[in-house]
């Protein structure tokens, strides 16, 4: 099947559609939706409580618009990030809550089994979701997920000692440039979206809880450590039973490039339809540094996984 997409120049003039809001178990959840066909659900990276960087659904804009020509694309804000409500209890500042919320969101939309695309922490989240709820998932794309890598992550190196004040444009730019191969990939529109998140009172509350009140050290990291061990064991046992692609980058300062082989091997041992792609001249955000080739890869993967 011919699945030609429009190049970025065509998408440039277009804006994301107005966001929608839906109640997911009491959590007001923001999402963007466009197009028809096989559903693709994007889950970005990061977590609540970061004062120097903040991803939100519009980070997928370069992918969302071209792919919406062929597929039903959905980009949502995770619990506690973007414009979605914070967790109610301090002990819910965990990846388990993020996965539970994402699962409930997909169920609430009554989607047919979806093609999950998760980046970084979102790659871990989507993998966990596919392991816990395979009936909701048709395929899985894991993009540069240090969280899912058995090896060391160097994420904290890039995020440490930001020379600019927290919640500033400069701090956000410094962090995302540090993530990238080509600093020019960090556009003003990208930073605008980060500032939009920083400007929300509820986001600052999340940072306060994670950092000042210690939810990060008390709940988030210990729970993630436990769950990560379990998740890697599940992968090694062969529990992941959906077409899967691992997408990595050669110049990612935060995810060891050769770690792609660890992730590929764990999954491929049990799963015929597993492929690996590594992009050159790409840092952590391959889908923003090389959107045309990323989109074409995703379109073919989704199409092939839907047959």
């Amino acid at each position, binding site marked *: 099947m011919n*699945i030609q997409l429009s*190049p970025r120049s065509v998408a440039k003039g277009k804006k994301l559609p107005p966001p929608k809001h839906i109640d997911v178990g009491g959590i007001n959840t923001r999402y963007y939706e466009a197009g028809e066909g096989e559903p693709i659900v994007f889950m970005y990276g990061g977590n609540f409580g970061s004062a120097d960087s903040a991803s939100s659904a519009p980070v997928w804009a370069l992918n969302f618009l071209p792919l919406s020509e062929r597929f039903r694309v959905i980009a949502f804000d995770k619990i506690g990030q973007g414009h979605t409500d914070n967790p109610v209890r301090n002990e819910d500042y965990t990846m388990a809550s993020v996965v539970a919320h994402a699962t409930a969101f997909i169920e609430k939309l009554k989607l047919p089994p979806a093609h999950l695309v998760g980046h970084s922490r979102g790659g871990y989240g989507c993998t966990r979701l596919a392991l816990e709820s395979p009936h909701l998932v048709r395929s899985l794309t894991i993009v540069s997920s240090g969280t899912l890598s058995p090896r060391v992550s160097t994420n904290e190196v890039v995020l440490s000692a930001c020379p600019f004040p927290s919640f500033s444009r400069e701090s956000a730019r410094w962090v995302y440039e540090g993530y990238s191969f080509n600093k020019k990939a960090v556009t003003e529109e990208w930073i605008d979206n980060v500032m939009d998140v920083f400007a929300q009172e509820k986001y600052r509350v999340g940072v306060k809880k994670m950092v000042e009140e210690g939810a990060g050290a008390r709940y988030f990291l210990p729970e993630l450590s436990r769950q990560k061990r379990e998740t890697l064991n599940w992968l090694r046992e062969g529990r992941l039973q959906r077409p899967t692609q691992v997408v990595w980058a050669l110049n990612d300062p935060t995810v060891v490039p050769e770690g792609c082989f660890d992730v590929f091997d764990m999954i491929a041992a049990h*799963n015929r339809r597993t*492929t690996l792609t590594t992009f050159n001249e790409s840092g952590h955000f391959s889908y923003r540094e090389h959107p045309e080739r990323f989109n074409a*890869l995703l*379109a073919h993967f989704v199409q092939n996984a839907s047959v």
Partner: protein
Amino acid sequence: MTTTRTDITVGGRKVSMLRAGPSGGTPVLLVHGGRPGLTPITTGAHLWDRAIPHLTAGRPVIAIDLPGAGNSDVGNADILSAGKIAEHLEAVIAALSLDGVHFVGHDFGGFVGMWLALTSPAKLRSLSLIASGDSTPKGDGLDDILLDAVPNPVWSRASQAWVFERVSYSHGHIDDALLGACVTAAQGKPHTDAVKAMQDPATRARNYGIGALKGKVWDAMRSKGVHVPTQLVWSSHDPRAPREAGYVLFKIIAEKQRAAQFHLINRAGSFAFREQPDEFAKVVAAFHDGVELERAA
């Protein structure tokens, strides 16, 4: 989808190819691996039969027989070297009036493509190196015992089936269609001419000039790089082209070529395009689409 065989004459030689797919768009040129007269299977355009239906959605596909393979004449045996075959393919591209091609080369075909990309980058819109053991740095490798005990007679049906099994992950693709086409090719004049040419010890030792050309390849890679978007598609279980070697080549190419990608296909040996044709075609067609989108952007 229909595949038709076309023969043209280039430089006084018959050049045979399979063609399929729509007429518009930049064609995909599939170039098989193997060194006719040396490799103990008769490679040729017929090896791509399982992948072609998966590749014809967006653009035309041309699978060529290299000189000495399938139905393509050897003619003067001087042509049996990588550099000469690259020149030959350039002439074929010109004879077909093609503005540019997406070059997809398996093993030796990939090595030829790499040289063509270095010498005539304008002819190629993109380059896909498929499990190209012939293209990677080797160093002081271990004694290659992979095909040490090829059963005689070489190029018989049983012998070729043995070789395909040795280099494959699974045997499912080694079917009557494959072995029948290989045996037919083994009986053809191009193959017997190539075998005859390789009986000369000096010609045989030259091994299609791969060793001699590699030095020039590395020099060109270091000094100017490959000026063509390049993907490397390696396999999870390929005894001829281990992933580590492919990854090393990827990093060499990546030094100077921005649009470089490395891929692994699961549950495949040397012939991912036969063992996992859908997974293979997905990765290759996505690269062609992506490269064209980037040009348009």
